[in-house]
């Protein structure tokens, strides 16, 4: 069953290659069909292997493929355990739905096959990332995911914003990757291998707290890049320049969760570094808060979702920071469903509005787009944390785990709760502004429901957004048990009694309902409220973080580079070389004076020198 798992990587890769080189000749239907086909096939191959874990017959297994870089012992190898199984299901499953959705969404684009080639490349990269059996391979997937993201964000490269956004995403991710890379150096220097099995079994014995802290913090730098955490989250909102299915696939459901996945994968190491855990939890909470504060004022529907993604990622990072790895992965899974749903729904709306993304020019779309409306409603309630939708269970589990940690973590719990309130508020704002109220679009627009290739994925995702939470209720922690083989050697969260969980759940639910009511009361009226005042302005410009980075990092960097290019290199270094050259020339022109051109002078000089030499030789030789 696991023998065929390499195909999960190879098939999408094949699809990408075929579409890249022959896509134009294949034509739209074949190119798109092929692309969907390989992802569905990947999913189908992984299903039985995943089910074997559910039934309990499955076994954690490492599968050797080939030797890659022998001098560092890095092999291409697959680690198949429940964690990679869950990620495989999410990536190929949600991925397949988004592929299907794109069939309709991208119809008529002149680079249609190219788009599907990139999508397939992304799935392949993501599968390399989640299936890898060692850090080196994981890094390969990690960077390739960044590449596919770059290609997809700047897919419409004739728009300068799209091209710039793609570049920004890649470079910011690279900064994160640098942290990962340095972590890899320390890992190799400590363990002499990158193999997960070897590292995780020997780590508790040989890893000092200092080394563990260094490794995990650096790994977290990588995670902060991919999972859009402070201070590296700035690329994600810009990434919305890409086609909407891309936002759904990469910037909501899969790629951005890579950081969370990586921390969960390396849970053993993170357990050895309590300081890192605290740092991660704080960064996650802060990210969740800042992103939520920005999300409340955004008027672009995709920007709202982008910041809400950052905020939710903050929750996941908080979870893994406090050691609630299963809760983090659980939220990752439910979020993949409802955020993909929300993005695809938004895409459906944008499609219907002929490219309009400003919510102030929407409203009243309920009647024209019933399927989108209902499925979006599910997504809205799920992310807001309303019982019994998926988001409620997973978010609550994170908050409960944080609370149970006690001490200063209670503060984080309180902040998290506040973020949950904000989330419910701004999601309600978005939902109401888009679908309810009176239409605010101009006469030229004729909104309509999207084709079946787009609505069917919405319905499927809607189903999971309702039900996915039920796999891990406090009453029956099925998901946690399922993941157990992946977290061997990782202690459980202590102090979580059923009574405490229920109490906290009720608190969360009340807060979520309050947020929804707040948003409903504020926006469910004919005139949109004026969003005026210092806070709204600051929030709308995302607290000018980009400007800040521009002034503090980019501009000085450019100045230094320019100085080096215009002064250091030509004046100082080359100046020295030219100085030497000038010196030689001057010396030469002085010596040149001796060259009278008169042969007799030379001959005389030689004769005199010869005589002198004879005397010198005689003197040295003792002839006198």
């Amino acid at each position, binding site marked *: 069953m696991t023998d065929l798992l390499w195909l999960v990587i190879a098939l999408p890769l094949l699809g990408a290659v075929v579409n890249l080189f022959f896509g134009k000749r294949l034509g739209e239907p074949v190119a798109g069909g092929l692309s969907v086909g390989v992802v569905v096939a990947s999913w189908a191959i992984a299903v039985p292997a995943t089910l074997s874990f559910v039934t309990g017959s499955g076994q954690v297994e490492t599968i050797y493929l080939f030797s890659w870089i022998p001098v560092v012992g890095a092999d291409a190898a697959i680690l198949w355990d429940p964690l990679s199984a869950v990620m495989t299901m999410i990536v190929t499953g949600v991925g397949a739905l988004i592929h299907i959705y794109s069939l309709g969404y991208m119809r008529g684009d002149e680079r249609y096959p190219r788009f599907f080639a990139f999508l397939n490349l992304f799935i392949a990269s993501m599968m390399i990332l989640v299936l890898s059996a060692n850090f080196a391979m994981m890094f390969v997937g990690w960077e390739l995911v960044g590449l596919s993201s770059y290609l997809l964000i700047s897919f419409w490269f004739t728009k300068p914003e799209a091209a*710039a956004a793609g570049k920004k995403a890649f470079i910011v991710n690279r900064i994160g990757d640098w942290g990962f890379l340095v972590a890899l150096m320390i890992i190799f220097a400590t363990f002499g291998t990158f193999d997960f099995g070897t590292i995780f079994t020997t780590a508790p014995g040989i890893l000092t707290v200092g080394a563990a802290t260094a490794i995990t913090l650096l790994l977290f730098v990588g995670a902060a890049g991919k999972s859009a955490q402070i201070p590296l989250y700035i690329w994600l909102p810009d990434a919305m320049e890409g086609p909407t299915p891309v936002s759904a696939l990469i910037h909501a459901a899969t790629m951005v969760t890579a950081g969370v996945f990586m921390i969960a994968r390396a849970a053993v190491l993170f357990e050895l570094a309590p300081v890192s855990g605290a740092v991660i939890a704080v960064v996650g909470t802060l990210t969740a808060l800042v992103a939520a504060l920005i999300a409340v004022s955004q008027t672009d529907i995709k920007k709202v979702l982008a910041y809400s993604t950052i905020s939710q990622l903050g929750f996941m990072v908080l979870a893994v920071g406090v050691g609630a790895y299963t809760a983090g992965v659980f939220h990752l899974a439910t979020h993949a469903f409802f955020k993909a749903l929300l993005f695809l729904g938004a895409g459906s709306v944008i499609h219907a509005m002929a490219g309009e993304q400003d919510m102030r020019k929407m409203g009243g779309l309920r009647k024209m787009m019933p399927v989108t409306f209902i499925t979006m409603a599910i997504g809205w309630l799920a992310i807001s944390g309303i019982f019994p939708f998926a988001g409620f269970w997973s978010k609550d589990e994170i908050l409960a785990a944080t609370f149970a940690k006690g001490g200063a973590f209670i503060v984080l719990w309180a902040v998290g709760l506040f973020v949950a309130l904000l989330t419910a508020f701004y999601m309600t704002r978005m939902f109401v502004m888009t679908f309810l109220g009176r239409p605010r679009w101009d006469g030229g627009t004729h909104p309509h429901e999207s084709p079946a290739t787009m609505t069917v994925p919405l319905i499927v995702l809607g189903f999971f957004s309702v039900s996915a939470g039920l796999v891990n209720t406090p009453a029956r922690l099925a998901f946690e048990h399922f993941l157990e083989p992946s977290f061997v050697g990782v202690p459980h969260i202590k102090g979580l009694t059923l009574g405490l969980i229920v109490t906290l759940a009720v608190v969360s639910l009340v807060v979520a309902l309050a947020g929804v009511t707040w948003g409903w009361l504020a926006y469910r009226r004919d005139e949109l409220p004026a969003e005026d005042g210092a806070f709204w302005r600051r929030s709308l410009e995302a607290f000018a973080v980009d400007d800040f980075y521009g002034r503090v990092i980019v501009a000085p960097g450019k100045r230094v580079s320019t100085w080096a290019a215009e002064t250091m290199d030509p004046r100082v270094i080359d100046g020295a070389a030219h100085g030497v050259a000038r010196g030689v020339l001057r010396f030469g022109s002085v010596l040149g004076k001796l060259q009278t051109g008169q042969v007799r002078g030379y001959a005389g000089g030689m004769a005199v020198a010869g005589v002198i030499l004879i005397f010198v030789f005689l003197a040295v030789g003792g002839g006198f």
Partner: protein
Amino acid sequence: MPVLTILIALPIVGAIVVALLPKRRTELVYPIALGMSIPPLVVAMYVLVNFRVGDAAFQFAENVVFTEAFGIGWIVAVDGISLFMVVLTALLFPISIAASRSITSNVKSYMVLMLILETGLLGVFLALDLFVFFAFFEIVLIPMYLLISLWGSENRAYASLKFVLFTATGSAFLLASIIALAIITGDQMGTLASFDFRNMLQTELSSTAQFVLFAGFGIAFAIKVPLFPFHTWLPDAHTEAPTAASVILAAVLLKMGAYGFLRFNLTLFPEAAVSLAVPLAVLGVVGIVYGAALAIVQPDIKRLIAYSSVSHMGFIVLGAFALTTQALTGSVVLMISHGLTTGALFLLVGMIYDRTHTREIADYGGLARVMPVFAGMFLFAALASAGLPGLSGFVGEFAVLIGSYLTLPVLTVIASSGVILAAIYLLWAYERVFTGPVTNPKLKVLRDLGFREVAIMAPLVVLIIGLGVYPKPVFDRIEPSVGIILDRIEATTDFEVPAEGRLSGVAEIEYGPVHESGGDN
């Protein structure tokens, strides 16, 4: 059969054939020169295929004595370090000759010089007699000088003279050191002198002698590499040179320096190498960051790639002086990869230059719309150069960084920031040249790459992917030769390579079902 001698001689034979072509028939020159560059590639492939894997010793050795008294002879042989340099040289010459279609003036001399250059380069990598090595080292200089000064662009006179003066300065030190070493070696063997590399390995050198000779060799190679702050000849030479010369310059010529460091400095003077490893690695790291920083703001695309070479060569030097198996092997792999990726980038820039006659980034914009194939190729080469995993650049860089951290942690962490900078300068350049709307009306009428141009690029593309995905055969051939350098250093100095820095220190991995007993709850 004297395979290597034939290999070295073949391009010269080709050059003679081209030179003897009738004056009127200029149309014959291009195809025949191209044809003449193929046999060396075939022979190089023969050597590659028949190279014994896992054998650290020199292979295909030939030894003909010229003069007993001065200890000069024709000694050529190949090991894991030179093997791929030879293959790279033999591969890139047909490609760059094929890319020289746009040369119209005096084609015959151009091709003759190219083929002489190939002989020179092959000789440098294969000669184990230092007298002959030096002769080849210098032979390379002349055709390259002429190629730049006769077929270069506007500022060619300055650039070619600068190239010659910088290199010749280094050569002076090299020659003096070679002669000194040969005489010392001869002294200890009871002859006047010996230029035989294998004899030099047996020579006992005092510390002072090691340092002086190391410096002499080192200056020559540092200029060739080029190591900061000897790098200023490179941007000028690269930018002014015709496409094929830029390709050869970046892909092969710079490797003479790196090769020299490995073959001579590290091997012959272990004690000096250990003591001077840190300063040299520092210069390498400065070069990485400095080259990358300068590449970011270059307005000229060819200069940008030239500075990126300075940055990449810094990685190679860092790897060479980190003195671990991973770093040294990675360094050699990076040499191959840099040859492929930078070669590809220069070829591509040449192709667009042939169409537009401008190298200014500002003159471009939105090119991906007009020339999608070209844009794809360029992005591919740029990403390979920026060290994207799965492509060749990453493999070498990764091995260098992982290996260098073992002995030079701080420097390596600084060096790794070059990875970020590389992404910045390459993607920013790509953004400005290829994306956005087509602003310059002259660009709208450009035709995309033709069959000939795609065919020129294809082998490079395939090798870049191949080396990135399955580099094991390459590593397996390089590693033993690198291993004996380290053995020698450990045997003659009190330096010890960290356990993880030798192949034996890399943990064995077990595959199959994982038993839970492995973890302890």
